[in-house]
């Protein structure tokens, strides 16, 4: 379905800044929105056309464009990335994806090979669940089920009764202004859908198809994407570099923006 330029840009809350000619697209992972890339993205504004966006259903995207049916695969999110790229006329751009966005970006390079020439994967995991064939994803199926159950109850830590106030009251927008935590808001249903999609996905076979230059940035002590998963990803990619960061945790873009900035700069 063809869309007008403004509708795509509004749908995904696309923000373009920076002075460069080559574009660098930053994509957020599960649990947050484009705000998580700010500390890194601002470092590239002098040399790059910096593109930030929210996936549909997240941040300030058009929640009306979301439906569980449409966004039932990571490929649907990759399609949106391609639409954004087409709207902005991107060629040979850099795609920087955090967490599940690393895989969404990989799928986007398969759909539009001219659009991205370089891919930066931050804390990627092609498969979160351990497999009988010896693959270690870091989680058992039972643990992921427990997470999904936890989200049913807690919606990413918001107390359950509070969460529906964010989006369950389209007629009362003032409620959203009263939320204690104003970033990374997600409708509880969408958060559950995205969690299911993220943590049950298996993109191991897609890795071998990726032709673009890729940088795998792996954190130390990341319980979401452990070191052996990063090594596995690097091993399967035909054209990749691997870098183990000093940063710990799953969100180095926030805890160690300088280290991430340096790593990306050296790569591109």
């Amino acid at each position, binding site marked *: 379905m063809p869309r007008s330029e403004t509708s795509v840009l509004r749908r995904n809350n696309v923000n373009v800044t920076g002075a460069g000619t080559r574009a660098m697209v930053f994509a957020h992972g599960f649990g947050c929105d484009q705000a998580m890339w700010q500390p890194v993205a601002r470092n590239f504004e002098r040399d790059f056309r910096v593109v930030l966006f929210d996936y549909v259903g997240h941040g300030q995207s058009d929640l009306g464009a979301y439906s569980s049916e449409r966004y039932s695969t990571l490929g649907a999110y990759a399609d949106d990335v391609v639409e954004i790229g087409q709207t902005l006329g991107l060629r040979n751009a850099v795609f920087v994806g955090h967490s599940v966005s690393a895989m969404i970006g990989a799928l986007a390079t398969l759909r539009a090979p001219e659009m991205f020439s370089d891919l930066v994967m931050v804390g990627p995991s092609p498969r979160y669940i351990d497999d009988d064939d010896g693959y270690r994803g870091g989680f058992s199926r039972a643990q992921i089920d427990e997470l*999904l159950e936890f989200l049913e109850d*807690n919606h990413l*830590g918001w107390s*359950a009764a509070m969460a529906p106030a964010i989006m369950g009251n389209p007629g009362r927008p003032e409620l959203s202004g009263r939320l204690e935590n104003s970033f990374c808001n997600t409708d509880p249903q969408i958060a559950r859908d995205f969690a299911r999609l993220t943590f049950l996905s298996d993109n191991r076979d897609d890795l071998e198809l990726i032709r673009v230059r890729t940088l795998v940035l792996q954190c130390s*002590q990341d319980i979401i994407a452990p070191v052996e998963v990063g090594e596995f990803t690097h091993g399967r990619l035909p054209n990749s570099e691997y870098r183990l960061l000093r940063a710990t945790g799953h969100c180095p873009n926030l805890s160690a923006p300088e280290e991430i900035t340096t790593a990306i700069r050296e790569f591109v």
Partner: protein
Amino acid sequence: MSEQSPAEDLEDLYETAPCGYLSASPEGKIVKINRTLADWLRRSQDDLVGKPIHDILSIGGRIAVETHLAPLLRIQGYVNEIAVDLLATDGEKIPTIANAAEKRDEDGSHVFTRLTLFKAIDRRNYERGLVHARTQAEIESKAQRESAVVREQFIAVLGHDLRNPMAAIAAGIRLLRNREKFGPQGHHILSEMDNSVARASGLIDDVLDLARGSLGGGLVVDRNSEAPLTPVLEQVIAEIRAIAPENSIEKRIEIDEPIYCDRGRLGQLASNLLSNAVTHGAPDRPIGFEAVSGPGLFTLSVSNEGDPIPEDARTHLFQPFFRGEGRPSRNGLGLGLFIAYEIAKAHDGTLEVDSTDRETRFTFRMPTEDRSFA
């Protein structure tokens, strides 16, 4: 206040406060934890210091902390009213509500993260109950909407399909009357059958109107000013007189200007109001019927001298299936006034009732001209 209050011991306040305190390093290691929280977890404070904060969280909690809370804390410096499940040594989950804030030094570097936790067992049960009730209500209301649509479609189809056999019976009665020879008893039976068919057809029409009205957009009317309304109203009065010969109807019809209306529908409105008057009026007192056009306004009113309508019944009069209490209703379904009201609405008009000890009067008013061009 003769005695001085004992001084508060700040260390004791920290250790045994009625809430849990925890400080973690930027790497997520527990730096300090109070005794209250350690007791909840059934572990010693010494054992906990230096351990990753993940150790005291459920699996779901760990992932939520890594993917959502930690970034949120970095971005805005605090998070409030977060639901967190702690994990005690024996595997028991302890629901808590937490506030967290980053302690930063003068340069703005992250020194550690402070958490304050409150046990929230009952509160979380209550919230779960609320969410469950909401989900349940959504499911039930969806099911009710669906079954209402099915029911109305069923009524519409049934009503429509009943029309043909009714028409066949009416035609059969006409044939018998014209071609066969009957005695006085036989003619009487044929007349009774005619009346029954007319009543049954009227009920079917009412039910179909109701179904159409509920299924979408109210009654459909076809309005124009091309023919006079008076003959239609005269015909309706004649029909009611035939059905209820014991009632007298005093009519006044003075229509001097064209009325922009659906004449069939206004005939139906007049018929419904007259039938209502026959049912509820005093049998020995006349029914009043007035249809008058003034400048720009058409008024039709029907009055009877029956008992006044009770105050609380008046608010429900125009709702479907409403029937007056205490009297056997001869008309059955209680749709007549509802349909009259819908016809009034479809003509940009009003239908009102005024009921006193002296009389009960229904008054319909509508503009005589098409207002859509105004």
